C-alpha cells in the first residue's frame, strides 16, 4: 500500500491511497484503502489521513474518521489523535500498520505500530526526510 497526504498554500487538505492488498488475499477481498473514513480521509476542518496495514481492522475501527473525530469533538491535536488510534485502538486489536496524517496548519504525524513503515515528509522549507525504521 502507498499513500500521500498534503496541505497546500491555500490551507486545503487532500489524501490519496493505492494498494495491491495482501499477498494471497481471497479474490474479491477489499481492505481499508478505498473505504472512505477507514484508510483514506480528508476534510479541511480536521485532517487528511492515508493508512496502511491490516485493512479489516482499519475498517472496523474507522481509523481515519476516528482521528478526525478526536480532533473535532475531543479537542485533541493531530499527533495526539493519530497516535492514540494507531498505538492503542489498532495495536490492541490486531491492527498492525501505520498511517500518515496532516492538519490544516500543515502539521504532520506518522505513527506506526509495526516493525517498520516506508515513509517520507517534506515541508515548505524544502527539508526532505525519508525513513523506514524507528
Amino acid at each position: 500500500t502507498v499513500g500521500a497526504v498534503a496541505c497546500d498554500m491555500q490551507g486545503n487538505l487532500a489524501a490519496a491511497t493505492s494498494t495491491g492488498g495482501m499477498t494471497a488475499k481471497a479474490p474479491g477481498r477489499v481492505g481499508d484503502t478505498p473505504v472512505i473514513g477507514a484508510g483514506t480521509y480528508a476534510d479541511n476542518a480536521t485532517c487528511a489521513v492515508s493508512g496502511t496495514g491490516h485493512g479489516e481492522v482499519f475498517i472496523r475501527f474507522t481509523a481515519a474518521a476516528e482521528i478526525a473525530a478526536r480532533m473535532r469533538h475531543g479537542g485533541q491535536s493531530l499527533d495526539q489523535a493519530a497516535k492514540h488510534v494507531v498505538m492503542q485502538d489498532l495495536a490492541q486489536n490486531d491492527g498492525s500498520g501505520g498511517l500518515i496524517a496532516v492538519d490544516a496548519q500543515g502539521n504532520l504525524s506518522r505513527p506506526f505500530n509495526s516493525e517498520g513503515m516506508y515513509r517520507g515528509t517534506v515541508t515548505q522549507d524544502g527539508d526532505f526526510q525519508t525513513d523506514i525504521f524507528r
Partner: protein
Amino acid sequence: MTRFSLAVHGGAGTIRRANLTPQAEAAYHNGLKRALQAGHAVLADHGSAMDAVTAAVCVLEDEPLFNAGRGAVFTSDGVQEMDAAVMDGATRMAGAVAGILGPRNPVMAARAVMEHTDHVMLIGPNALKVARDAGVPFEDAGYFFTQARWDALQSTLKMRRDGIEDSDPARRHG
C-alpha cells in the same frame, strides 16, 4: 497563506532490518524521495493538495518495490486486484475504485470517479470504463508483474498448504 507540507508512505509491516540489504534500503529511500519531489514540485508552484497527493502516489505506483500499481501483490488465484481512493478536504468529495486491473495508476482511476461521476466508489467493468473515458492510461497484466511478488505468493500458498501460515497479517500486506 499557509505553509505547505506533504507526507508519503510506501506501506508498513514486517520490515526486518536484517533482511534489507543496503542496496534495497537505498532503493526504497530513493522511491520515497522521488514521490516527495513530485508532490513538492506541485505545492511549491502553488498547486493544489489534490494534485500533489496524486502526483506523489503515481510515482509510488510506478515503482515496483511498493505494493501498488506496478509491483502489486497477487490474490490466491494468482491475479492482481487493486484498490485506490482520493479525498479532497476542501469539498469532502471523494473517489474510490476496488478490485481493478488495467489503469497504470489506480489512483487516477479513483480520481476519475470523483471528478466524472456522482459516486464515491465504483467497482467492476464500469470503473474501468470511467477511467478509460477520462483518458487514464492502461497497461496489460504483464506490466504489473514482478517476480518478487509472484514468489511471495507461492511461498505463502505453500505455507498455507503445509498448515504453517502465520496469522500475522503484517507479513502479507506488502
